[in-house]
């Protein structure tokens, strides 16, 4: 706990909070440095990312990666408070809490200078915001069964996520999430089998895979999977498909599956790699689809019997247009949970294609949509 925050001690209610001394994480907890989750703001509006999508910062990929690298430990993310002259909208705190919780982690709340000062002075707005923050944290601590489900993924990203591969592989994780491509990070150094349900694997490293890893990935392809790889994979024996859905890859058929290898010079652009992975895999394997979500993050968890889709609105305010969500699977009930509503809402199911479509109420920050077969 920062010393200057102690003045706000009277306002701190233990419910839902775990006080943390700087640099002293509780047992079983790994604290990583992260970003202020949310839409990046620039003078005159939001900053655009590639293809004009708004630029979103999220700690979700880091929590998933560290959880995978450190089994048995809970991952918390700490974000440095903003500079004294930087104004942070209060909703960014709620987004930070929701972003981490949606990925099975927690966000270490360290109020900015203005928040600390106004809270210590018992400012009514600060107090109200503090209560909202408490309610959000309590929402997640009381619903571990909602946030503790494993990620529902169709794509695995294989890398050592370190050294020369660190930036590219980690950015693919980040941008796969941004494109609503359900993914899992897979550490290549101890990968002996692939999780069930994967349709595609991206091999992201500059070095050729070891013989056992190559063999594992080839078995996946021969059984019908898609492997998208870097040039490090080397020559592929299978015939090349005449038409490819992306200009940057040649597609070889191997067994029942496909291997996509870069054609010509590698772009080295993780955004393009994530976009190509989505196209090569095909939206046919979507687990969920979102309409009018804008900068909303969508993180499916669970399985075909009980699926929880976490929605984080990085904008911090409701979207201009109403949001619809489709979840693949045959579900009997769909329920919306959010700290923005006093109680869970049963949603009307519209059966479309092989899934359930629901129309969502306004979501400023977060909702979990739970579908049960």
């Amino acid at each position: 706990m920062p010393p200057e925050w102690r003045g706000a001690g009277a306002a701190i209610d233990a419910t839902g909070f775990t006080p943390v001394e700087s640099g002293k994480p509780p047992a079983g907890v790994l604290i990583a440095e992260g970003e202020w989750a949310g839409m990046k703001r620039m003078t005159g509006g939001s900053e655009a990312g590639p293809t004009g999508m708004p630029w979103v910062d999220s700690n979700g990929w880091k929590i998933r990666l560290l959880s995978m690298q450190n089994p048995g430990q809970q991952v918390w993310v700490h974000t440095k408070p903003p500079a004294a002259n930087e104004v942070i909208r209060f909703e960014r705190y709620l987004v930070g809490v929701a972003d981490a919780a949606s990925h099975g982690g927690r966000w270490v709340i360290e109020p900015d200078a203005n928040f600390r000062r106004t809270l210590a002075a018992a400012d009514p707005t600060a107090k109200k915001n503090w209560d909202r923050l408490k309610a959000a944290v309590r929402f997640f601590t009381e619903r571990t069964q909602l946030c503790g489900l494993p990620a529902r993924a169709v794509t695995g990203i294989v890398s050592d996520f370190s050294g020369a591969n660190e930036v590219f592989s980690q950015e693919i994780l980040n941008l796969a999430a941004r494109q609503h491509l359900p993914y899992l990070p897979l550490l290549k150094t101890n990968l002996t089998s692939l999780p069930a349900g994967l349709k595609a694997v991206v091999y992201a490293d500059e070095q050729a895979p070891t013989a056992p890893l190559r063999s594992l990935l080839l078995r996946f392809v021969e059984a019908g999977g898609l492997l998208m790889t870097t040039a490090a994979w080397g020559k592929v024996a299978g015939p090349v498909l005449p038409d490819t859905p992306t200009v940057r890859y040649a597609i070889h058929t191997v067994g029942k599956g496909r291997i996509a290898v870069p054609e010509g010079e590698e772009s080295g652009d993780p955004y393009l790699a994530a976009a190509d992975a989505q196209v090569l895999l095909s939206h046919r394997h979507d687990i969920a689809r979102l309409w009018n979500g804008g900068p909303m993050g969508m993180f499916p968890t669970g399985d075909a019997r009980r699926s929880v889709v976490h929605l984080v609105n990085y904008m911090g305010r409701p979207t201009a247009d109403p949001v619809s969500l489709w979840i693949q699977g045959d579900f009997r009930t769909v329920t919306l949970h959010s700290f923005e509503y006093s109680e869970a809402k049963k949603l009307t199911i519209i059966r479309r294609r092989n899934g359930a479509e629901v129309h969502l109420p306004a979501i400023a920050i977060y909702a979990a949509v739970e579908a049960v077969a």
Partner: protein
Amino acid sequence: MLEKIPMSITRRSVLSAAGAAMFTGRALAAPQSTRVAVAQCPDYGAALTPALNGLFDQLGGLGRMVKGKTVVIKVNLTGSPTYRLGHSPLETTHYTHPSVIGATVHLMGRAGAKRIRIVESPWSTASPIEEYVLQANWEPNEILRAAPSVEFVNTNWGGPKRKYSRFTTPNGGHIFPGFDLHPAYEECDVFVSLAKMKDHVTAGITLAMKNCFGITPCTIYGTGAGVDEPSLTPTGGRGMFHAGDRQPSKSAPQEKAHSVQKHGGARVPRIVADIVAARPIHLSIVEAVDTMAGGEGPWTGPGLKVVSPRLLVAGLNPVATDAVCMRLMNYDPMARRGAPPFESCDNTLELAEQLGVGSRDANLIDVSGVAIEKAKFDFAALREMKKKIPGARV
């Protein structure tokens, strides 16, 4: 006589543009038949295919038109597939409905079409159309399996080899003397515009002709188009068509030197007229079983409405077909700039008429099927209501 010149865009081909003229292909022309057929259809279910078939029969039958031919069908998939008007599926508001596409494909296959290609230049992507429509929650296989030899073609680029075909605008056109388009528009015996009936905030209305605005590749005409040659993949929309703020890639025909129009309401209708004159439409089909009023997509609000006119319209001449559609919308196809729905734009039909594409004169159009007065759906009244909404664009 209209000409099209097959060519692959390279630096060398630009230098030898004059020489390219000798590769003149066969002549193209919009049919001058003034017959336009109108039907009412309650929904996109079982009544749809017979209703469409009835329209085609009134035009002389599909067999005569497509047997043994390669048919290219331009559909309307404007805007992102993840952007809806409210909660309404895109096909019930601003996308051509997949059931109408499927039924049309099926009937053309049954009539003996040799090959059917469904084309569109979707927003800012060179990805397969199948991927685009999956995001809208469509099942592309339902369309692909509706007849033999059916495929989707993304015409927003020239493929990895950047191949384009050149189409020249008769009489030089209003703004563009020609266009470089995806070769699918050349490798085509019958070109069909399968459009949605909608208002349009820039052009007043969007029907069979305006649908063809989207045949232009954004590698040449888009925000991220290459300056000298087409970019490999497309990015952005066709801002240059609206604003005239830049020229297409230099490898393509440039705007006429005297073209000084910088206002979308003047430019877009002229460019649409140029496009349909350069790449004539042989069959126009406009659907409005369900559609939207007030604009062409959810981004054109406020004041938009989901409506169910329950209409299907088909004709051989696009100007005549659009004119009948306008009358069905309770608009006057003879209206000039300033009158609804052309309050702030010029009349595309009039501009196409000036290029010899067809006639909008009701006295020269033979309407068959359901009478216009009986089938009319009052878009005009909804437009007047929209005008009263603060911030509404018309």
